[in-house]
């Protein structure tokens, strides 16, 4: 009743069998030696691939036909077909290289897993039914199916629990009885019928189970890789290369404070109207009105402020002076809230330096609930309210229509960028929005304010530069994946 891992002893030509299959769980690391040049090319290309997966996931409804079409195209452009056997080697090796670069922090792992899972899903769904079955069998997927009698008894409930099941087909469909812990994605979104701890999964949704399993394995594997990382870090040829790879996904690391102290607290009110993205403007306004923000809001806004250059001392003063105008007195503030702010600046607790949230993070994780003002207005506001707000901010009716269209199509970041364009009077902004702090920097640039902090968007180039110094030697990849 569980996925069982196939343990294979690897022979002399170990991977050729693996490359006969169109898709794999990446259970075994590559065993061959590869040149550093190839190592690098593979890494950079897979990174481009994952970036593409991310972008498409934000701009299109995932797994819609449009999304699929785009994906097909882009993969071809990136020379990442995986069907022909020869390219499977590249797929395999490049996946493992990025594991090294993306296992280091929680944020990196989350990003990497998300993109790899999306990619896997796209590929799995694309397989012909026969190959899907083969894949399941190869990976020993064994759950009990419902008997006809059980199906009959539950047919009403089964029918009401899945979008893909219609009355006629309940009898013809297989339903798997899966412990709910193995079907979390289906449980979370209420796409299965649950009874006494079991999820009743229709056969076509079994892909979700496969993904769940893939995700779990990958996250375990990354944790393991992270543990063997010291060895990699001491390798002076690999270390800088991997570091650059991992910094590439955000474009810029906004946790590194630049311009510290350049902005005074008095400027925040006017900046919030001019240069803050709507999410931050909303938080700022709520803070001024209620003299309080709940945890999610404090994190999202506090880290943003840190990112634009507010120092720890300023931050403490800023939050304290606002909070004590509300229900919190200075004493309570110092006891209950100051810690959290120092924490954001890496001065307490784990001493981790927290990174300002990216749009993806704001849009996807921790949605606002009662009493919260955080989140992304393009994603989390009622369209009606958003419209009113835009009107209030004097956005022209035609632009509002455009923005609302984008919102409807779930292109939240594009909607935000459109808003940027109309409020800054630029026709075609030259950046692609992925971070509230980026919005701020671009806005300051457009308004002729702050100087443009140098950004290194062009990943491949950067990687090339640093690796010029690297000797051209062969790397034994397998050695990097030893279970520490």
């Amino acid at each position, binding site marked *: 009743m569980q996925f069982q891992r196939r343990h294979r002893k690897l022979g002399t030509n170990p991977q050729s069998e693996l490359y006969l299959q169109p898709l794999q769980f990446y259970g075994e690391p590559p065993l061959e030696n590869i040149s550093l040049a190839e190592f690098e090319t593979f890494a950079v290309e897979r990174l481009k691939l994952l970036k593409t997966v991310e972008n498409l996931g934000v701009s299109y409804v995932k797994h819609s036909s449009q999304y699929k079409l785009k994906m097909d195209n882009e993969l071809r452009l990136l020379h990442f077909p995986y069907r022909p056997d020869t390219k499977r080697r590249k797929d395999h090796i490049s996946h493992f290289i990025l594991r090294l670069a993306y296992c280091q922090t929680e944020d990196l792992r989350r990003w990497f897993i998300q993109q790899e899972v999306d990619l896997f899903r796209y590929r799995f769904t694309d397989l012909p039914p026969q190959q899907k079955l083969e894949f399941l069998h190869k990976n020993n997927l064994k759950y009990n199916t419902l008997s006809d009698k059980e199906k009959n008894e539950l047919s009403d*409930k089964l*029918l*009401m*629990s*899945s*979008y893909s099941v219609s009355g006629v087909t309940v009898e013809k469909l297989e339903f798997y009885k899966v412990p*709910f*812990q193995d079907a*979390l*994605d289906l*449980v*979370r*979104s*209420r796409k299965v*019928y*649950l*009874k*006494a*701890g*079991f999820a009743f999964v229709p056969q076509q949704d079994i892909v979700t189970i496969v993904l769940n399993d893939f995700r779990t394995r990958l996250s375990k594997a990354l944790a393991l890789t992270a543990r063997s990382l010291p060895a990699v870090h001491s390798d002076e040829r690999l270390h800088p290369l991997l570091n650059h790879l991992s910094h590439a996904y955000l474009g810029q690391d906004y946790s590194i404070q630049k311009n510290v102290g350049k902005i005074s607290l008095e400027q925040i009110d006017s900046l919030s109207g001019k240069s803050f993205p709507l999410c931050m403007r*909303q938080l700022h306004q*709520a803070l001024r009105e209620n003299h309080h923000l709940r*945890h999610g809001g404090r994190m999202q806004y506090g880290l943003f402020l840190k990112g634009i250059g507010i120092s720890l001392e300023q931050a403490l003063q800023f939050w304290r002076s606002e909070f004590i105008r509300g229900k919190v007195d200075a004493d*309570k503030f110092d*006891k*209950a809230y100051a810690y959290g702010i120092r924490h954001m600046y890496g001065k307490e607790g784990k001493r981790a330096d927290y990174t300002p949230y990216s749009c993806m993070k704001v849009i996807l994780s*921790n*949605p*606002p*609930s*009662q*009493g*919260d*003002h*955080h*989140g992304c*207005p393009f994603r*989390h*506001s*009622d369209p*009606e*309210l958003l419209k009113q707000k835009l009107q209030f901010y004097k956005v022209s009716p035609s632009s509002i229509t455009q923005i609302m269209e984008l919102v409807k199509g779930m292109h939240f970041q594009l909607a935000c960028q459109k808003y940027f364009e109309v409020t800054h009077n630029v026709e075609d902004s030259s950046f692609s929005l992925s971070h509230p702090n980026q919005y701020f920097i671009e806005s300051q640039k457009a308004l002729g304010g702050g100087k443009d902090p140098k950004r290194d968007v062009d990943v491949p180039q950067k990687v090339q530069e640093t690796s010029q110094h690297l000797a051209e030697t062969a790397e034994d990849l397998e050695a990097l994946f030893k279970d520490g």
Partner: protein
Amino acid sequence: MRMSYSDYDPACLPDLLPLYYRRLFPFSQYYRWLNYGGVQKNYFQNREFSFTLKDDIYVRYQSFSTQNELEKEMQKMNPYKIDIGAVYSHRPNQHNTVKSGSFQALEKELVFDIDMTDYDDVRTCCSAADICSKCWTLMTIAIHILDRALRDDFGFQHLLWVYSGRRGVHCWVCDEAARKLSAAGRSAVAEYLSLVKGGEETVKKVVLTDPIHPFISASLEVVEKYFLEYAVQDQDILGRKECVDKVLALVPEDVRNELQTKMKGVKQPEKLWKMIKNEAKNKQGTVKKGQHFEKEIMLQYCYPRLDVNVSKGVNHLLKSPFSVHPKTGRISVPIDLKEVDSFDPFVVPTISRICEELDRPRTEEEKSEESQDKENEKDAVETRKMRDYKRTSLAKYVKYFDSFLDGMTRSWKGELLRKSDDQMEF
């Protein structure tokens, strides 16, 4: 004859706490709970407790090797509030000596926190920290809905519902499968159970799409039992004009206009509600979207609002049962499921009340029991304490807690038996 207990004075708390922890706190039941039958090694020992002391001083990562040690420490520190955290890989009080990264939260009960402040946009009677018997119905509804789902859908059996002491309830799911649930598992369960979504920027917080999942239908059945009396009558959500408008804001725009015309001049809330329901029924025949608005209204006004973040984390702390609420003085007592509907938070004893009750002169019966005690001196201290809480209004809550633990013990017995069977095989 009812005494007045609303005269709890927070200033007296420092004087009352020592008495409470010395003579009333049910340590043996408490230990019996968190030790879980000793099925897993060091389960109690590796559990985090955190204490809030006078002046909001907060001490985390307390842990104890025995019931006795816990007792001694609590009697020494006299915490204003007790929180329970996770079972860790090492003793929490030694977490500093463990290599960082290897000190990890491994298990905890699956917990839920429902707080009345999260319902402020749908309560007309009170706001913020205030509650009254009218809005308490929301908690009753929450318990019925979640309890059913956690048992029938997820197959859990050992659910401890606890009054938070002020304005909400907590649920501790104590089954082994729940305690072992991963963070992803916890958030999946919590999201399955969440229907009301969105913050201050969202008006319509419940959106239903076809088909309506059996879980939602079952929850609606519960809400329907209460809706008319609670929402329409007590909360009067269709009374004043602003209220009616707020309800109608949840109806699709085109229907809203039609309804508004029809509703002109009608004043009786029950009638208005009937009109809304009928309108929805008529529209359900058509293929249009938004045909479930009457259900959405009911859910938005009554469906439990979970603080998902509390449930998600394995290491999240939650106020312990039998802890005192420093503001109200009320004890966090377990709620007997058989009596949820009559549970009245204002009857829950305060610490001042039970301490007073201790000072009452003993009855004849109690005296005779006492003299028996003196004869067998052995467990005198233990038994005296037992009888101490029995003389107060805490008794019935401890008794219920006992019966809850008995239920769990039966499952531990099975577990231990299985384990010893396993050993026999080797």
